[in-house]
């Protein structure tokens, strides 16, 4: 234990605690900027400097370990002056046109400048305006806003093992860009959006597609429908000022109707459908000597990763489309038929916790008529939040309304798709009962839940012990892929999610996602599951009806045309 003082307050801390960590435990506020809870300590911005008695230099509290007898001052005139000067320096090399920035009022730099009382800058601007990277359908990079905190590099290199971005050059010419100073492209970036999730300012943001949605909503000739992903129901509340992990499912439906959508549907429905198709595919491969291990396919970031880095194992991946895309395919075939509409009058919007879904929606394979995308626009949780604020909706107090029919009945198995391990658990709940022809007494597979990087479970299927694995983040995916590539994988079925914690930690989720918040969202997802009347996908009567009415049978011809896809190598 260490005893020392901060601002004359006696502090007791464990060994190897930083001044910042100790201060936070005692609710002493030290401003930070480059610091982020789940990422490495950088001590680059120098905002968190404090004064140590007897020292002329100032020390960064994020990296300085507290020692016995230290006397720390976090607010001396010297410190306050240094902090202000550092902020002014940053602002002098930043595109500070806040009202033209999507992060206005939600920006860490702005908040800090305001907190430090900065209302003018002693330094003239030295910003040399560079072109904006607007070349891909998912992420926009505006380097003129970058404050070189390095969080994006950290998450891309260390959490995702992608290393798309790095810092090029030095001194004032230092810039964070992809290799060769090029623009982000689908040759090297998976569009997972984790960089946009951790960026403190507006330097990397998802492409704003809300204008397209407003246009569609205001077009009287279009029947605009929307699907809501599992993870969004435990996240949108947080985006609109409610606590993290608030379950707001039916508030979302209500808000979307208020925005003017003609019908509001649940992606959970096609998540159930995915389980039927994918479950049968797995059983088929196991029974008939197909390629194993089979790997899930609902995560577009993972698909991008596999196509770029592991094209040799693409035939392991399930041919099932993601729930988003299965919905889109049905929305442009079954749905207009049932509702007596022209497919071209149906406009499909999806609300996703994910940025890579924007890429997935415009893939050539995701057009059942080979011309028009099945999903027209993808909005992130954050973009939907923006639209709801624009309409002045009082979200917290809005009346709750259920999803529309058809596609109305969903299960708990579908809901848990939003958490890492959820797809696996949902699949096992169905596959177990179909293969073993007996009821699964305990439907909770606790060993595949939670935030551990790679999780395992063992299940008995038809008298055989079958091992399965679940990985989240691409760094962990890489480990399992190497095994599959080498032919040494001990697993039969593998679930891969790109984002930490699964979709609830997606690149399009509310800013400020930390481990703590991920845990709250995950807990909420499993609560939703627990509260559902039906917990297994194959018990969903609406799914049974869909097959009876339209699809005929799992893996049948119609399923194949609408609900399955293929992949291709991105290697040149």
């Amino acid at each position, binding site marked *: 234990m260490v005893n020392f003082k901060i601002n004359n307050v006696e502090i007791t801390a464990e060994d190897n605690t930083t001044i910042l960590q100790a201060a936070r435990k005692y609710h002493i506020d030290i401003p930070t900027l480059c610091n982020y809870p789940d990422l490495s300590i950088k001590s680059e911005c120098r905002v968190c400097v404090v004064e140590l008695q007897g020292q002329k230099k100032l020390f960064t509290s994020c990296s300085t370990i507290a020692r016995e007898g230290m006397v720390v001052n976090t607010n001396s005139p010297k410190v306050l002056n240094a902090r202000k000067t550092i902020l002014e320096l940053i602002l002098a090399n930043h595109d500070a046109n806040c009202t033209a920035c999507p992060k206005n009022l939600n920006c860490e730099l702005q908040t800090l400048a305001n907190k430090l009382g900065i209302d003018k800058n002693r330094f003239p601007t030295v910003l040399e305006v560079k072109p904006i990277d607007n070349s891909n359908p998912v992420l926009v990079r505006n380097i003129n806003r970058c404050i070189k905190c390095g969080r994006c590099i950290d998450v891309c290199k260390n959490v995702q093992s992608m290393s798309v971005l*790095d810092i090029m050059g030095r001194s004032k010419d230092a810039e964070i860009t*992809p290799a060769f100073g090029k623009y982000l492209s689908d040759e090297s970036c998976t569009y997972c959006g984790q960089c946009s999730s951790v960026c403190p300012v507006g330097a990397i943001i998802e492409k704003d597609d809300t204008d397209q949605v407003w246009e569609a909503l205001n077009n009287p000739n279009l029947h605009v429908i929307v699907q809501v992903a599992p993870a969004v129901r435990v996240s949108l509340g947080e985006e609109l000022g409610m606590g993290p992990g608030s379950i707001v499912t039916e508030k979302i439906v209500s808000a979307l109707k208020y925005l003017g959508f003609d019908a509001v549907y649940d992606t959970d429905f096609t998540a159930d459908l995915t389980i039927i198709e994918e479950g049968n595919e797995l059983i088929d491969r196991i029974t008939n000597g197909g390629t194993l291990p089979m790997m899930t396919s609902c995560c577009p970031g993972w698909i991008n990763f596999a196509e770029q880095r592991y094209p040799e194992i693409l035939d392991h991946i399930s041919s099932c489309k993601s729930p988003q895309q299965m919905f889109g395919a049905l929305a442009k075939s079954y749905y207009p038929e049932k509702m007596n509409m022209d497919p071209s009058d149906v406009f499909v919007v999806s609300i996703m916790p994910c940025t890579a879904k924007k890429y997935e929606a415009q893939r050539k394979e995701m057009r059942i008529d080979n011309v028009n995308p099945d999903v027209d626009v993808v909005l992130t949780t954050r973009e939907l939040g923006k639209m709801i604020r624009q309409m002045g909706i009082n979200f917290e107090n809005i009346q709750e309304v259920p999803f529309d029919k058809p596609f109305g009945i969903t299960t708990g198995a579908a809901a848990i798709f939003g958490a890492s391990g959820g797809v696996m658990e949902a699949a096992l709940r169905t596959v177990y009962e179909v293969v073993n022809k007996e009821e699964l007494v305990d439907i909770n597979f606790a060993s595949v839940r939670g935030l551990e990087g790679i999780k395992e479970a063992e299940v008995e299927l038809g008298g055989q012990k079958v091992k399965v694995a679940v990985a989240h983040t691409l760094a962990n995916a890489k480990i399992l892929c190497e095994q599959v590539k080498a032919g040494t994988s001990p697993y039969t079925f593998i679930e891969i999610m790109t984002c930490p914690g699964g979709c609830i930690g997606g690149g399009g989720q509310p800013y400020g996602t930390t481990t703590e918040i991920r845990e709250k969202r995950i807990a909420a997802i499993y609560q939703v599951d627990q509260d559902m009347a039906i917990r297994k996908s194959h018990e969903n009567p609406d799914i049974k009806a869909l097959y009876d009415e339209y699809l005929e049978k799992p893996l049948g011809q119609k399923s194949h045309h609408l609900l399955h896809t293929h992949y291709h190598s991105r290697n040149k």
Partner: protein
Amino acid sequence: MILLREILAKYPKEEEYLIEILLEYQTSKKNHYISEKDVNEISKHLDIPESQICSVISFYSLLSMVPKGRYVVQVCHDVPCFVNEAQSIYDKLVEILGIEDGETTEDNLFTLEITECLGCCNEAPAMRINEKVYTGLTPTKVEKLILDLRGEIK
């Protein structure tokens, strides 16, 4: 002409030799630079991301991803040379080469650069052309040097 793969084969397959490899390879090339293709090959060989290699090259001023002239002429302009008429050396070079700091002559023979202290302050002013350092310079000496180099090419 030395191939990149020959140089790669000389070093252990470890990240820590990246700078040595880049320096040796660049020195062997007539136009003193490392291309995208080179970066790609090194990336595959050492199993280092391309972005990281670009980060290294762009950090160090002796490494370049932009082609330069056959002779890279670097004039020191730090204080010990500056107070010893370094400006006149630079001006003379601008005059006879017809280019300014950062530029390359049309015939791709010379690139002119202003550089930092070369550690020859005892014989200031100094300049460096490729690997060689020249000291105790005067505008006349510089002119002769450049003429000699031009003559060598013919």
